[in-house]
């Protein structure tokens, strides 16, 4: 077998009039082909919210996706009891926008950090995340694989930090330290309307410093920046994180426009106003620019780490074959 590497960077004649004569081959149409295909198959996205009760997790997710997608919308019960252990509740919805269908799954973790003794309350969460990886792995190793393996892996975990204004709580650092290597963690400062702008800045800086000192790599992780362009984009985002957010699903009239906000005696906090809080920044970052990247980092890095660990274990893997004692379906 011979290999002949010929002339590189050929063609690219610049006839833009679409003439089929001498210039245009048409390989850029492959983008449109891919696009059509992915639009047909649809997307899915799994987001997990962690933080103790009352920090506005469900409200924030509803605000992000402008629809009632979180657990609380399915039967609002104000006097829900605090569960004795951390529960994992996943709710799925299909939302559509601009012809793009997305199956959004919100994984809620009620009971986290609510007990008197919160030792190991991160374990059910860690177990859930690994279970999703295991499910995917089993599908991948199967003899007859599905064309599109259903993806229930957690792509993004939003961690809600209490706006104490002082420091991170011990629970916060413990949780993030243990989970930042198996899932993308995005820390946010919840209920930011309890702090003034200066207080927010100071708090943010303290939190960032603490995260750095504890060696917690939140998303977007520095080590996964692929090129200079990514690095500069992500540096800007990392400088601004953790975002101080306010969530709301009520609308008010401000300056002739209807906006989402929280009405208080001293004014209306506008959720999408960048001068009031950083919700808009979080939304743009999470949904409009890095949604696909979150999925890719989960698939290419976190999942691969899990897979490598499993492959190196003693047991190895059993391919689920329906053909050991039955006919093969080839």
């Amino acid at each position: 077998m011979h290999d002949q590497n010929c002339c590189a960077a050929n063609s690219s004649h610049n006839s833009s009039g679409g003439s089929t004569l001498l210039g245009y081959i048409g390989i850029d149409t492959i983008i449109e082909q891919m696009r059509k295909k992915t639009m047909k198959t649809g997307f899915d996205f799994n987001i997990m919210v962690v933080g103790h009760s009352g920090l506005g997790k469900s409200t924030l997710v509803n605000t992000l996706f402008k629809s009632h997608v979180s657990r609380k919308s399915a039967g609002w019960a104000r006097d829900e009891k605090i569960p004795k252990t951390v529960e994992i509740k996943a709710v799925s919805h299909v939302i559509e926008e601009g012809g793009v269908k997305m199956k959004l799954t919100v994984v809620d973790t009620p009971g986290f950090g609510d007990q008197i003794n919160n030792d190991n309350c991160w374990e059910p969460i860690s177990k859930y995340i690994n279970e999703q990886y295991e499910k995917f792995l089993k599908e991948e190793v199967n003899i007859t694989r599905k064309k599109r393996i259903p993806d229930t892996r957690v792509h993004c975990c939003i961690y809600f930090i209490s706006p104490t204004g002082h420091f991170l709580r011990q629970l916060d650092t413990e949780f993030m330290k243990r989970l930042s290597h198996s899932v993308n963690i995005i820390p946010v400062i919840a209920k930011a309307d309890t702090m003034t702008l200066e207080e927010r800045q100071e708090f943010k800086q303290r939190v960032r410093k603490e995260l750095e000192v504890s060696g917690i790599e939140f998303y977007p992780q520095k080590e996964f920046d692929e090129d200079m362009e990514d690095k500069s984009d992500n540096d800007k985002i990392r400088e601004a994180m953790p975002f101080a957010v306010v969530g709301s699903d009520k609308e008010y009239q401000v300056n002739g426009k209807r906006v989402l906000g929280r009405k208080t005696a001293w004014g209306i906090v506008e959720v999408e106003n960048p001068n009031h809080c950083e919700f808009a920044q979080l939304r743009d970052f999470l949904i409009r620019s890095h949604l696909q990247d979150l999925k890719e980092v989960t698939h290419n890095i976190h999942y691969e780490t899990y897979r490598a660990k499993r492959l190196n274990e003693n047991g190895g893997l059993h391919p689920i074959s329906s053909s050991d004692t039955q006919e093969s379906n080839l």
Partner: protein
Amino acid sequence: MDAIMLQEKLVERLLCPRVRTARQKEKQYVGFATLPNQVHRKSVKKGFDFTLMVAGESGMGKSTLVNSLFLTDLYKDRKLLNAEERINQTVEIIKHTVDIEEKGVKLKLTIVDTPGFGDAVNNNECWKPITDYIDQQFEQYFRDESGLNRKNIQDNRVHCCLYFIPPFGHGLRPVDVEFMKALHEKVNIIPLIAKADCLTPNEIKKLKDRIREEIDKFGIKVYQFPECDSDEDEEFKQLDKELKECTPFAVIGSNTVVEARGQRVRGRLYPWGIVEVENQSHCDFVKLRNMLIRSHMHDLKDVTCDVHYENYRAQCIQEMTSKLAQDNRMESPIPILPLSTPDVDTEKLIKMKDEELKRMQEMLNKMQQQMHDKEQ
């Protein structure tokens, strides 16, 4: 044409730094409609790859056609062997790689050539080196995929095979039939009628009908164009129908540029007229190019990954597991637990568990189907 402007805009948006869209002013706009663009941004940055195999006897115009399709000159320094030198030649596999860039989109094109195919006196199993090559690429991908470091897997699998049928005969010859039958479950085959400029339109039609009949008769599974979506416009559906009725494509290639009707075109100059390669009334070259590059390139890759490769993989795993059961050996390139020969009782237990698993699997499938139906 509008399609081209649309492409340009799309590529521009993909390559420039992430900007807010103007539509953020809309109230209900969340923003994940940009998701398809995000998905492809990385692919555009990384570039695409495509492996095309050409097969057929010497002198069918394969190299010329490839040059015409991709506007390159891949075979500049080729030395053609004379008859004596070719006596002891066996079928070789030669790869040419070329990087093409157009409007910011990079394509790494690999052409797999098969000189010597069908040229000998005794052509028994002359397709074997070719099937072996295709299998080798599948095996290499399989090993890479099952390994630990999957970051930069090179995909050398053959996505499409253009098979050149000589126009001189009355349909498919035995070597054509045998070749296509040996390969139709390993690669997407697109049969072409080569050197179509030696046939009149009537003769071409008769030959195409004959070939289509024989393909059906011998059960050869050539590449099928996927069905049109119901929401495509009428024009597209009409074009698609015409395309399907036109197979196998009768093609002509040319490395030279001639002057015809006041323009410079790729063509062949005869005393009785000029054959233009890109003239749709002269040959099906344009149809082939549009199908291969502009509308079905991605589908060809998908069918290779989802169908041909999966078949190979399933077969491979089956062979491995049965071999392991027989030999009780521990080594295997992919993670499988070695099956020891069980006694009657354990065998019964295994059978029960397997059936349970199968039942659970079926239930899961049903549930998934229900969820899927609900969402539609």
